[in-house]
């Protein structure tokens, strides 16, 4: 019993020391550096080719696609839009583009489509597999015309979680990645509300919290500093999750 108490005390002391370090500025910059190293090596490991998230067959699709975070948008406007089959939903493309766009659901469905069966990995540790359909973000961005100086794509969402609007962002490499899709279908059906109806981003080489649901707009920017909390995403601002979620 005594030895166990000693171990607990030792563990607690060590943990307390680590907690103090966690809050320091140096630790924060180390985290950022490590994240950049991971991102760099993940892309470098492709040795020239674009790395692709694994794609699966229909037989691999999980029986249910779990939802997490916001499971609906708590507003009358959203409920009215849902009741109307999202006929009035629009996706805006703004920021550093030649022509700002405002696309209707019909216009999005009329674009060339990509269907991919991919695995969704939550930061918590679980995974689900689903089949997603929608236009590639690259084709939408090309329609708008990307201006020089655009370094990040910011994804605006309709949902408000714990008092803050959900948003996410990625670099241009991920924005133009072939598997980065604005999905309006899951497993061949219109996207369920719990999974982000009517539009959800698929950013397949990163964890689930990057796959923004209830998508209302894409904004191209030169810097993330002035957007919301400045860390590039809802969970990044709120809880300190890593902006590069490829790890």
């Amino acid at each position: 019993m005594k030895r166990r108490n000693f171990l607990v005390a030792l563990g607690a002391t060590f943990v307390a020391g680590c907690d103090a370090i966690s809050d320091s500025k140096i630790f924060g910059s180390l985290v950022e550096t490590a994240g950049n190293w991971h991102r760099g090596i993940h892309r470098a490991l492709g040795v020239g080719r674009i790395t692709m998230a694994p794609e699966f067959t229909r037989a691999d699709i999980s029986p249910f696609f779990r939802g997490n975070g916001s499971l609906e948008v708590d507003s009358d406007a959203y409920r009215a839009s849902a009741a109307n089959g999202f006929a009035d939903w629009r996706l805006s493309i703004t920021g550093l583009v030649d022509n700002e766009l405002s696309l209707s659901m019909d216009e999005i469905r009329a674009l060339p489509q990509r269907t991919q069966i991919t695995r969704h990995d939550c930061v918590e540790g679980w995974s689900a597999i689903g089949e997603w359909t929608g236009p590639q973000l690259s084709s939408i961005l090309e329609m708008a015309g990307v201006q020089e100086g655009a370094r990040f794509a910011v994804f605006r969402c309709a949902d408000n979680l714990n008092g803050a609007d959900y948003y996410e962002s990625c670099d241009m490499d991920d924005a133009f990645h072939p598997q980065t899709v604005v999905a309006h279908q899951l497993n061949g059906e219109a996207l369920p509300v719990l999974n982000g109806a009517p539009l959800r981003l698929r950013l397949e080489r990163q964890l689930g919290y990057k796959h923004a649901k209830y998508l209302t707009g894409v904004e191209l920017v030169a810097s993330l500093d002035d957007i919301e909390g400045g860390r590039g995403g809802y969970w990044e601002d709120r809880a300190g999750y890593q902006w590069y979620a490829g790890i």
Partner: protein
Amino acid sequence: MASKPKKPRKKHALSTRIWHWVNVVSVTILFMSGLNISNGHRRLYWGDWGFASEHAWLEVPRFPGWATIPGHYSLATARDWHVIFAWVFALGLLFFMVRALMNGHFRRDLFTKLAEWRPKNVWHDIVEHLKFNFEHEGVKFNFLQKVAYSGVIFVVLPLMIFTGMVMSPGAEAAVPWLGDLLGGRQSARSIHFICAFLLLAFFVVHIALVLLSGPIKQVRDMITGGKIDEEA
């Protein structure tokens, strides 16, 4: 690479000692931050996907604050620690492996010879261990030590890195065959967890044997390098 390993002057090469103490820090931090990450989702699955209890093969306990980094549940901070020290650990292992290949440590001390696998020798080794007789009769490690150290260095530690990579969507996209090889992301996660506890078991036995075989000399030798035993 030398054709014949030179006889070392010290019991532990400098590279081995550096790696040993770096691992004390990095593996401890990886293990304890890993326990915090485990608290984020306590079910383990086989295959590529799984999210509910009916898919799970194991639900692990919630690990208490004194055993986790940080001391309260924070998936974000725990992942920060894990992501930083993954680099320290992986680069350290690479550094050690290159040095141990170059200085002959692997060939001289760790690789077992076929004759050592004879049941008689294995049994003899087990009996001597149970008698707490740790004399090695002229070689650095006896059979059980070689198997334990080789198992950790060549199987468990590399598996920690490879399963960790499969769990990272960015890394898996770069080396998708690794995911297939390890049976899918959730299998990799299960193996990662099992290997972590194999390492804990190794650590417990390692500490116990150090305590039983002259702990002060053992720790001193792992710092200064120590001298080769006369008969070796």
